């Protein structure tokens, strides 16, 4: 790791102000992604602001009947929360499908949203990568791309967003609440929070430098049958090749969101509308315009089959 200085913030204001005043400063929450990348010198902050003690670790009801999840709530605690288990089961399921017990004990809501891609070349500093080093090229296009995205990609980057949690939050129409050094607060719909790569794959989200995530809010519960299915190379402790989060409503309507296949949690209105025509139609609508590589074209069929298994799961519960 490159040398850095460390400070522990005591409040949200202090954290945001330090971030604005110290050049090269970064927040550290669980540290499970940032330290991993710092050891490889992919991330090289000069100062770390520890945000673990600024009072953002609560889960509480909102006035609208939804839920406000503090940015520092651990993935374990969010998945185990009684209200989440009962009213937002798809979120519990997505969290529990990710990482390991040890990692979930450290990983936080904000850190999970902001975790970076698992593209093998992003991790290999000897290889060209437009995300790590803008303009250097993309080693994945002609390399090992099996795990990477098939839709929403660009000529510059085909990296996938690796989060499970974010897929469920996209399905539930969550909002990301932030605060900046001057105290400005704003709420960003999760649909707009992550950015597609385009020509600037190193820009991954809408946060401005030093902007702190304070919480993620969920709208009131939508009921229905909530399911999450993750397909991966081993049964546990592996990132998704394809994952699907779904809510099947009692009126025959449904919502779908997808992980492992795109640079951000993937959701398409036309896919939701196709529920009456079955899993293949939903997959076709979700993947319209997909541009897979020869190595990851299998994800198209796998998405359809994963959806089919969710339709069966829903039927079995009905």
């Amino acid at each position: 790791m490159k040398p850095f200085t460390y400070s522990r913030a005591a409040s949200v204001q202090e954290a945001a102000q330090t971030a604005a005043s110290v050049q090269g400063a970064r927040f550290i929450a669980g540290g499970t992604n940032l330290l991993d990348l710092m050891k490889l010198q992919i991330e090289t902050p000069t100062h770390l602001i520890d945000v673990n003690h600024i009072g953002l670790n609560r889960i509480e009801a909102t006035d609208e009947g939804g839920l406000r999840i503090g940015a520092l709530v651990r993935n374990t605690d969010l998945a185990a929360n009684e209200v989440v288990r009962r009213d937002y089961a798809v979120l519990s399921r997505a969290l529990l499908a990710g990482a390991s017990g040890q990692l979930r004990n450290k990983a936080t809501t904000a850190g999970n949203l902001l975790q970076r891609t698992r593209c093998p070349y992003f991790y290999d500093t000897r290889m060209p990568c437009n995300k790590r080093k803008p303009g250097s090229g993309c080693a994945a296009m002609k390399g090992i791309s099996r795990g990477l995205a098939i839709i929403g990609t660009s000529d510059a980057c085909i990296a996938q967003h690796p989060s499970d949690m974010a897929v469920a939050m996209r399905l539930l129409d969550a909002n990301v609440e932030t605060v900046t050094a001057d105290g400005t607060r704003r709420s960003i719909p999760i649909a707009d929070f992550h950015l597609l790569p385009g020509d600037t794959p190193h820009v991954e989200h809408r946060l401005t430098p030093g902007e702190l995530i304070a919480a993620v809010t969920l709208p009131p519960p939508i009921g229905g049958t909530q399911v999450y299915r993750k397909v991966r190379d081993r049964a546990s402790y592996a990132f998704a090749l394809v994952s699907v989060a779904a809510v099947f409503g009692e009126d025959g309507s449904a919502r779908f969101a997808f992980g492992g296949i795109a640079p951000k949690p993937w959701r398409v209105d036309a896919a939701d509308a196709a529920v009456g025509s079955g899993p293949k139609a939903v997959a076709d609508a979700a993947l319209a315009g997909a541009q897979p590589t020869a190595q990851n074209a299998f994800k198209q069929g796998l998405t359809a089959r994963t959806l089919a298994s969710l339709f069966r799961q829903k039927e079995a519960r009905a």
Partner: protein
Amino acid sequence: MDAVELTVNGRDVHLQLDPRTTLLDALREHLHLTGTKKGCDHGQCGACTVIVEGRRINSCLTLAVMHEGENVTTIEGLGSPDNLHPMQRAFVTHDGYQCGYCTPGQICSAVAMLEEIAADIPSHATQDLGEVEFSDAELRERMSGNICRCAAYPNIIAAIRDVAGEGEA
């Protein structure tokens, strides 16, 4: 250098550390508690698992300075050769290892994992989110963050089941 105070295995320790020092390196290189192992140093194997404030974590992916004032339990703190922790004894009885490299991490993880079940924390293997039930599938899923290159998995599960009082499957 940053001053860091920790309570490790019940003992207060004062260290002067470069902020880059991971909790794992602080334990092994500075406190010479070499029971905790470094496998991958990237959160991918679980060999470095220790218990901090009652929770199991990967000590390789956290900085020692971030744990100022906290309680850390390593394999050395669970039991000693003449006074083994029940989980340590069960690993011996059931032959839950071959080379032994992953074992300290497995044992720390297993001890804290049983607490997680007792605290009603669900897992990917939990059938009904309303109620966590004990099963081998639960144990396997919950221990998936501890890789064993020797593949002692069946005996590891037997040892944990024994400690949990669930006997033979």
